[in-house]
C-alpha cells in the first residue's frame, strides 16, 4: 500500500482510523468487514489504549439479571442521567444496539462473568434502574480490548503502533488524510485516505488529579477543530467520585464504581454516611430510606435474588456523588489526605477478592491497604469528557466531509453527565457505526488527489521547530502550570470570575507554548511528544473554559456556584465550538427536538 512520494513515507488506505482503543478497534473491524483497506494508527502499543483501564462493566439491557429491563429503560436512564441534554437519537441507538454488541463480543471470544443459569452476569451501577453492566470482575476493559485487538488483527487491518498523528490533511471540500511521526524514530509519515475516523479518547490530562493516562491530551478534539469541524458540550467534564488520594504517586487513580455497585458505603471522618444528605429531591424515591433497607438490597444482590428494597444512596449519579465528596472535604469532614472513606470490608473477604480483584491488588500493592479489612480513602478525579466532535447520530459523521468520530472524542451521546458503563457500550455501538459509514463513504467517494506536498512540508516544519529554539520554555513545566490552572479554576465547581481568570492564564500559556524548546533527538523523545500534545490540551482547555463561562446554569457535571440552578432555556441548547479565522468561536445552538413517543418513555 506504499505510494512513491518524493520525501515522505506515505501510506494509502480507504479508511484511516486514528486511535486504537475500543472505538477505533471496533470501527476498524467494521470497515474492514465492509471491504475497505483500513489503517489503524495508535500512539501506544496495540492493546495498551485507555480502554484497558475500564473496570466496572459495559451497560446493555440484556435483561439477564432483571428480566424487566429493556432498551426503553436504558434510554430513559441515559437521558435522565445526562440531564436531558443528550442527542436523543444517539441515546436511542445506543440503548437499542448495546445488547447485540455485547453478545457479539462473546462470539468473538470474550469471557464475561456468568449468572447462576449460565448467562452473562450484570451488576448494578449508579443511575441505572436495573443491574445492567456485563463485566469480568473489575477488568472489563482488558477483556474488551484483547477481544477487539485479536479480531482486528485477523481482519487484515494494517496497524501502525506508536505512531502520533499531528495534522489532518484537507482540501477545500473534505479531509484527505493525516500526517504524523513514528514515536520510535521520530520519522514523519503521511496517510492518504478517503475517510478518517477519529477515536482518540478524552482530554483529562489537563487536570492535576486525573484517572487519565498521558495519551488523553485531546488530540482528536483538536485535530477536528483545526480541520474546521464543530465541537459540542465542551463544558461537561466528568469528575469520577472515587479516585485514590494516597499515596501521592497514585493520586487520581481510578477506584471503580463497581465497589459501590457491590455495596460499598461512603462515610466521612465522623463516620457519617453522608450520601443520604445529597440525594436530589426529584430522585430520592429511587433510593433506600434507611441503612437497613440498603443492607437488604446488598444482601439480595449477593444472593442473586429479587428484592423490594431500593438501592443504596452511594449509587446516585457520578456528578452528584463527586460534588457530595468535594463538599464534605471542603467543609472539613474529610480524611487526613483530603478524601472520604469508601468501605466494602463488611462483606466476606473472599467475595471482595473475587468481585474486585484488581482493586484488591491495587490498594494492597500501591497503598498498603487491605480493602477486605478496612476502608479505602477516595476523592474525585477527572475522568471522562462528555463533550466532543459533533456527529450525525446514525453515521458518526462530523460536520466536515470525510471526517468521522466515535467513542469519547465524539460529543452528544451522554449529554451533561455520563452514566457508568455507558462508555464501553458507546464505543462498541458508535465504533461500529462509524466504521460502516466511513467504509460506505469511501466506496462511493472520488479518489483523493496526490498528497499535498505543501501541507506536508509545513507540518514537518512545525515538527522540527522546537528543536531550533535557543532559550525557551520547558514542556514539563508548562504542562504542570496548565494542570494547576484547570484544577483550581475549571474544576468541579466553577464561577464566572474564576473562568475569566482561567481564560487569561490560558492565553499566557499559549504564548509560552510557542517558546517551548525541546532537547535531544526526535527518537522516542517524551519531551518532544509532550510539545504537540500541549498544543491540543491548550485548545481543549480553552474550549472547556469558554463553554463553561457561556453556560450560566448548573446542569450535570457543570456546576456554577454563581448560577446554582437548572435554567430551562439552557436545557434547550448545546454549546458549540468552532474555529473562526484564528479565534475560537463559542455559541449556543438548539438541541434536536425529542420526539413525543420517546418523551413519553421518560415522563412515565
Amino acid at each position, binding site marked *: 500500500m506504499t505510494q512513491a512520494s518524493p520525501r515522505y513515507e506515505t501510506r494509502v488506505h480507504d479508511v484511516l482510523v486514528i486511535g486504537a482503543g475500543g472505538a477505533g478497534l471496533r470501527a476498524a473491524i467494521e470497515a474492514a468487514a465492509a471491504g475497505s483497506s483500513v489503517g489503524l494508527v495508535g500512539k*501506544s502499543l496495540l492493546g495498551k489504549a485507555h480502554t484497558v483501564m475500564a473496570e466496572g462493566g459495559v451497560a446493555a439491557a440484556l435483561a439477564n439479571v432483571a428480566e424487566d429491563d429493556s432498551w426503553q429503560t436504558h434510554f430513559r436512564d441515559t437521558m435522565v442521567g445526562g440531564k436531558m441534554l443528550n442527542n436523543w437519537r444517539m441515546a436511542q441507538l445506543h440503548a437499542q444496539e448495546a445488547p447485540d454488541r455485547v453478545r457479539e463480543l462473546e462470539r468473538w471470544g470474550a469471557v464475561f*462473568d456468568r449468572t447462576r443459569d449460565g448467562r452473562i452476569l450484570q451488576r448494578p451501577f449508579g443511575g441505572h434502574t436495573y443491574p445492567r453492566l456485563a463485566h469480568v470482575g473489575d477488568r472489563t476493559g482488558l477483556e474488551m480490548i484483547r477481544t477487539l485487538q485479536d479480531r482486528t*488483527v485477523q481482519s487484515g487491518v494494517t496497524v501502525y503502533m506508536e505512531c502520533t498523528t499531528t495534522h489532518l490533511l484537507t482540501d477545500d471540500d473534505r479531509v484527505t488524510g493525516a500526517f504524523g511521526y513514528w514515536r520510535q524514530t521520530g520519522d514523519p509519515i503521511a496517510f492518504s485516505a478517503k475517510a478518517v475516523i477519529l477515536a482518540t479518547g478524552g482530554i483529562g490530562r489537563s487536570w492535576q488529579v486525573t484517572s487519565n493516562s498521558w495519551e488523553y491530551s485531546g488530540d482528536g478534539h483538536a485535530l477536528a477543530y483545526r480541520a474546521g469541524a464543530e465541537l459540542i458540550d465542551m463544558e461537561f467534564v466528568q469528575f469520577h467520585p472515587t479516585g485514590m488520594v494516597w499515596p*501521592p504517586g497514585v493520586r487520581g487513580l481510578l477506584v471503580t464504581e463497581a465497589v459501590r455497585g457491590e455495596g460499598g458505603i461512603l462515610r466521612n471522618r465522623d463516620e457519617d454516611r453522608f450520601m443520604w444528605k445529597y440525594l436530589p429531591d426529584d430522585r430520592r424515591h429511587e433510593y433506600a430510606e434507611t441503612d437497613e433497607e440498603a443492607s437488604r438490597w446488598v444482601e439480595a444482590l449477593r444472593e442473586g435474588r429479587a428484592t423490594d428494597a431500593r438501592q443504596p444512596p452511594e449509587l446516585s449519579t457520578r456528578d452528584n456523588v463527586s460534588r457530595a465528596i468535594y463538599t464534605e472535604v471542603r467543609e472539613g469532614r474529610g480524611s487526613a489526605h483530603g478524601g472520604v472513606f469508601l468501605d466494602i470490608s463488611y462483606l466476606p473477604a473472599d467475595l471482595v477478592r473475587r468481585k474486585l480483584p484488581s482493586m484488591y491488588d491495587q490498594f494492597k500493592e*500501591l497503598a498498603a491497604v487491605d480493602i477486605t479489612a478496612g476502608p479505602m480513602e477516595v476523592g474525585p478525579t477527572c475522568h471522562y469528557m462528555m463533550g466532543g466532535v459533533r456527529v450525525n447520530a446514525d453515521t458518526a459523521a462530523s460536520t466536515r466531509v470525510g471526517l468521522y468520530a466515535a467513542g469519547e472524542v465524539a460529543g452528544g451521546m451522554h449529554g451533561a453527565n455520563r452514566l457508568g458503563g455507558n462508555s464501553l457500550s458507546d464505543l462498541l455501538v458508535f465504533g461500529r457505526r462509524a466504521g460502516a459509514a466511513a467504509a460506505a463513504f469511501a466506496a462511493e467517494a472520488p479518489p483523493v488527489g496526490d498528497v499535498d506536498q505543501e501541507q506536508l512540508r509545513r507540518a514537518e516544519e512545525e515538527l522540527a521547530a522546537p528543536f531550533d529554539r535557543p532559550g525557551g520554555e520547558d514542556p514539563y513545566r508548562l504542562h504542570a502550570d496548565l494542570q494547576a490552572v484547570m484544577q483550581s479554576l475549571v474544576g468541579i465547581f466553577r464561577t464566572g470570575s474564576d473562568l475569566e481568570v482561567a481564560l487569561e492564564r490560558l492565553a499566557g500559556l499559549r504564548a509560552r507554548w510557542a517558546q517551548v524548546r525541546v532537547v535531544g533527538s526526535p527518537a522516542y523523545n517524551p519531551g518532544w511528544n509532550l510539545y504537540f500534545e500541549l498544543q491540543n490540551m491548550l485548545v481543549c482547555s480553552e474550549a472547556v473554559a469558554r463553554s463553561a463561562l457561556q453556560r450560566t446554569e448548573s446542569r450535570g457535571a457543570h456546576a456554577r456556584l454563581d448560577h446554582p440552578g437548572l435554567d430551562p432555556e439552557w436545557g434547550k441548547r448545546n454549546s458549540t465550538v468552532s474555529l473562526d479565522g484564528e479565534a475560537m468561536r463559542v455559541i449556543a445552538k438548539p438541541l434536536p427536538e425529542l420526539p413525543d413517543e420517546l418523551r413519553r418513555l421518560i415522563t412515565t
Partner: protein
Amino acid sequence: MPYARVIAFRHFQVYRGGPEDEGEFVEYSVPVEEGMVVLDALHWIQAHDAPDLAVRWNCKAAKCGSCSAEVNGMPRLTCKTRISDLPAGAPIRVEPMRTFPLVKDLVTDVSWNYEVNNRIEPFSPPADAPEEAWRWQQEDIERVQEFRKCIECFLCQDICHVLRNHETKNPFLGPRYLVRVAGLDMHPMDQADRTRYLKDEGNVGYCNITKCCTEVCPEHIKITDNAIIPLKERVADSYYDPVQAAWRLVTGSRPRDTRRPAGEDR
C-alpha cells in the same frame, strides 16, 4: 490539598542510550515521597534532569503492562515497584528488558511478540451452535479467565531463559503465548486443534519448567502449572503415547484432539 513529605533522596542508575550508541548508566538523585514507585522516579527525572529520557508507560495502575523494565536485575512493572521495598543504602538500577532489541533508554522493541500472536489460530467456535451452548457455569470458565488476566507486559518473555539466552526466539512461543493458547484451548466453545502447532512450530518442548515466568507475573497467573504443563501433557498424549501411536498406525488416524468437544455435557 495535602502534600507528601520528602523522606529521603535516593540514587538511581538509569540506562541511557540507543541501539547505535555506547550505552551507559547515568546517575540521578531523586527526592522520594511516601508510597512512591520507580515509575514516579523516572517521571521526576524526565521533568527535572532528562526531558528526553525514553520510558514506555500508560495506565500507571498495573493494568496495561507497558512500563516493564529490569529493576536491580529483576523484570518488574515500574509502576508497581515501590521504592521503599528496594534495599536502602544501595543505588536503584533501572535498565531495559534484555530479551528484546533496544529502541532507546528503557524502551525495547517488543514487536516480535505481536508477530507470534498473529500466528496462533484464533478463537474458533462452531458457526451453528445453538444459543444454549453459549451458557456456561462460572466454574467452567475460571481457568480461562485466569489466563485472560494477562496484561501483555512481556516480563515472562523477558525472564524466560529459552528466549533470553538463546537465539531461539523464532521457534519458541514463550510463556505469554502458551498462556494464550491455553486460554483458547480451554474456552468452552473453541474447536480448533493447536496441538501440532504447539509441538512443531511453537516448540512447547523447549520449556523445562523452571517456573521463572510464574514468579515474575504481575497478574499472578500460574503460568507453568496451569497453562504450560497441561499443554505439554496434551502434546505428549497425542504424539508420544505408545498405545495411541500404535492405534494411529493401525487405523491411519491423526492424533486426536484430547479435549471435550463443544456442547458436550459438562
